[in-house]
């Protein structure tokens, strides 16, 4: 298991380096003079020249990349051009908001999705199964931005149950502010996880060890919840790991629509203003988050199912 974990994290590091390098090259390939865009029309030539030198934009791209990784190894993500603040501070100030949002979405969508899927699998081809299927597919098909706007209009404007914008202050207020955005970006995952769990469960329920358990007279609820679900949940763990990436991208629009702080909004604003240090800092952290979450999902999978370790 330890060897497997080391190999998995080595691969994660490699993926991180490739992803960050590609992003580094892509942002430099986008048209437009970053210094001119950053400083605006009225910046003096001296200031433009100084910033160009500070960001090493007068160097060849390969050299800029070497400088970037050199600084990164020393834990230096640079300084924000506009505010003069440390990029590390800025990114880590926004990160908790995005993590809250993603975790909130995953927790509620996985809990409900697994429940719905397991229940439908336990009652296959019944009315309940068909209703659950219809609901799940509807959830998957509902575009998150439509859900976001409708939930804002219904729950924030009309009913005034939840706040419309911001991230709140203090634990309970933050939780209250999390409800609508987490609902909006998590809804389609409920349907997706429910369908996945149902299919996986039905497959597992037909296997010999389940039949054996039933033959031993073990309570049906225990068969479903312990023997079947433990195996059936494996693909869900993997999907949730990969889903972190999708939720990170969904968080971008959620942060805009709900006017929440967060990494996604930070990246969008920084790309628009060609604020390279912030873009790279944010990309590094969000890519790292994605890579680590998928690696963790693989490790949990391997822990739950020893066959996964040998297969890899």
């Amino acid at each position, binding site marked *: 298991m330890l060897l497997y974990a080391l190999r998995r994290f080595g691969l994660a590091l490699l993926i991180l380096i490739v992803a960050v390098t590609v992003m580094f090259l892509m942002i430099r390939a*986008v048209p*437009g003079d970053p210094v*001119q865009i950053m400083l605006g029309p009225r910046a*003096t030539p001296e200031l433009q020249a100084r910033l160009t030198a500070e960001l090493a934009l007068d160097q060849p791209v390969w050299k800029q990349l070497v400088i970037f990784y050199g600084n990164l190894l020393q834990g230096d993500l640079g300084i924000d051009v506009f*505010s003069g603040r440390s990029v590390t501070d800025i990114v880590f100030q926004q990160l908790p908001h995005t993590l809250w949002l993603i975790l909130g979405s995953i927790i509620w969508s996985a809990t409900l999705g697994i429940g719905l899927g397991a229940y439908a699998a336990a009652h296959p081809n019944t009315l309940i199964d068909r209703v659950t299927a219809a609901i799940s597919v509807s959830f998957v098909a509902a575009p998150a931005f439509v859900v976001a706007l409708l939930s804002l209009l219904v729950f924030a404007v009309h009913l005034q149950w939840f706040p*419309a914008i911001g*991230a709140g202050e203090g634990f309970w207020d933050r939780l209250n502010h999390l409800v609508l955005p987490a609902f909006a970006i998590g809804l389609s995952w409920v349907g997706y996880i429910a369908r996945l769990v149902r299919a996986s469960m039905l497959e597992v329920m037909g296997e010999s060890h389940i039949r054996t358990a039933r033959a031993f007279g073990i309570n049906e609820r225990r068969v479903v919840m312990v023997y079947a679900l433990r195996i059936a949940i494996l693909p869900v763990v993997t999907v949730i790991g990969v889903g972190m990436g999708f939720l990170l991208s969904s968080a971008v629009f959620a942060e805009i629509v709900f006017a929440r*702080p967060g990494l996604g909004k930070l990246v969008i*604003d920084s*790309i628009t203003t060609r604020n390279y240090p912030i873009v790279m800092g944010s990309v590094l952290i969000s890519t790292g988050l994605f890579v680590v979450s998928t690696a963790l999902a693989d490790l949990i999978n391997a822990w739950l199912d020893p066959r996964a370790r040998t297969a890899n």
Partner: protein
Amino acid sequence: MKIEWTKAPVGRRNFLKGATALGAAAALPMGLGGRAMAAEGGTLRVRSYGDLQSIDPAFSKGVIDEEIHASIYNKLIQYKPGREWDWQMDAAAMIEQGDETHIKFALRDDIGFTNGFGAMTAEDVKFSFERIVADETESPNKPDMGPLSHVEVTGEREGTIVLKEPFAPLWSIALPYITGNIVSKKAWEAAGGKATTDPLAESGPYLRDSWSPKEKTVLKRNPDWKGDAPAWDTIEILPIDDENTAEIAFEAGELDFTRVSLGSVQRYRDGVPNGGTLLEYPSLYYTWLGMNLDHPKLQNKKLRQAIQHAIDVPSVLEAAYFGAVDPSTGIIAPGLAGNRPQSLVPPQADFAKAAELLAESGETNVTLKLDTLNKTTFTTAAQVIQATLAQIGITVEVNVLESGAFWASADNEDLQLVLNRYSMTPDPYYATSWFTTEQVGHWNWERFSNDEYDQIHTSASQLTDQAKRAEMYQRAQDLMEESGAYRFLTHEATPVIHSAGVVPALRPDGLALLRYFGKA
């Protein structure tokens, strides 16, 4: 936070020196009376379209920073809320134009800086203004101060602003706006001359209480403020980029004041939720279709004129701005010196004349590329222009660009037609500065170059005779239009909504002057 300072002899005699000062001083209580009476406390929540970038006026990025700076700092003079551009006294007890290059001022004796940095003195004014124009500061806002030479300190609270040459915009964009904010010399020097996002010393009616990046800036009353008490205890400034989100937040009761989208104006004209009110202000922005005079395809003036006459401005505005804005006559907005009552080419298209001009040009099978930003308003406008030019046989390919790529168009030698929009401060000098020969290759994307225009731009800023200035700037816009390189579209608009309990204090272009916001 305790402020200690001694009173300086800014006497009544000094106060009475300037007739301008008298007028402004008389107007001041009228403007603030309502606020003072309504000052009962509470929290005002307003939307800003972006987040704070710098607390240092020398590096202010514009309106977003200025909304905060104007509340926590003082200037000699401030914009006066209302529908017409005017200013009122702020930190100045007296200010007068001695001659064309000298402006005398005396500070009030009751303004001090926080964090123990003492009373505001003329040395602070000198430091604040001179550092803006100093080369070593590298302030992007340096042009606003124009030909400032230096500030002479003649007393503890008296001084004279000395210009190298006359500069009329000093009164309209330098002193009452970004560069006019007075900071504490001692505080800045103690910090090594630089401030980033944390205030070093504040002096305004509000103090910045907290800043959560991308989330909220909170301003609280300055307990040591000796001027007219602001109406609100707390002001929360929420950075919300998306106007639709801001509208929803307002309707949910989470905002008291916000700019709204032009597409929502008609809906709010029919009624603003929660007893709110819609206010419609003109904007200073100017939007136009430009033609690159250096491009081989656009060398023929008759062709350019045909394009001018074939674009139906009302149709563009109806489709792209939902009919909520008026056609413009040039780059200088109504209410400012130099605004033209009408353009040379009427806003309505004249297809017969356009076809006639095209025939005279001898050009056939004309195909042109139109560059525009990837915003719905501009892409819609581009499509209408594409359709109207097609009526006279000109084919237009719309090239939609992301903002970074679009704003790098100065280097694009293949630029042909461009749908553009610039922002503006309340002085015509600011608008004409982008179309001079010197700006070719920078912000003058049409590559328009005209000696008379350049001369007007230089000399009109030195005139104090407003009527003469207006005439000169009108002539400058005539020259632009006569070149055939411009089809002026609109100055857009600033529609805002506010809740029932708020009395907004706005500039004539609809931007908020938060320190003057009152209660209903």
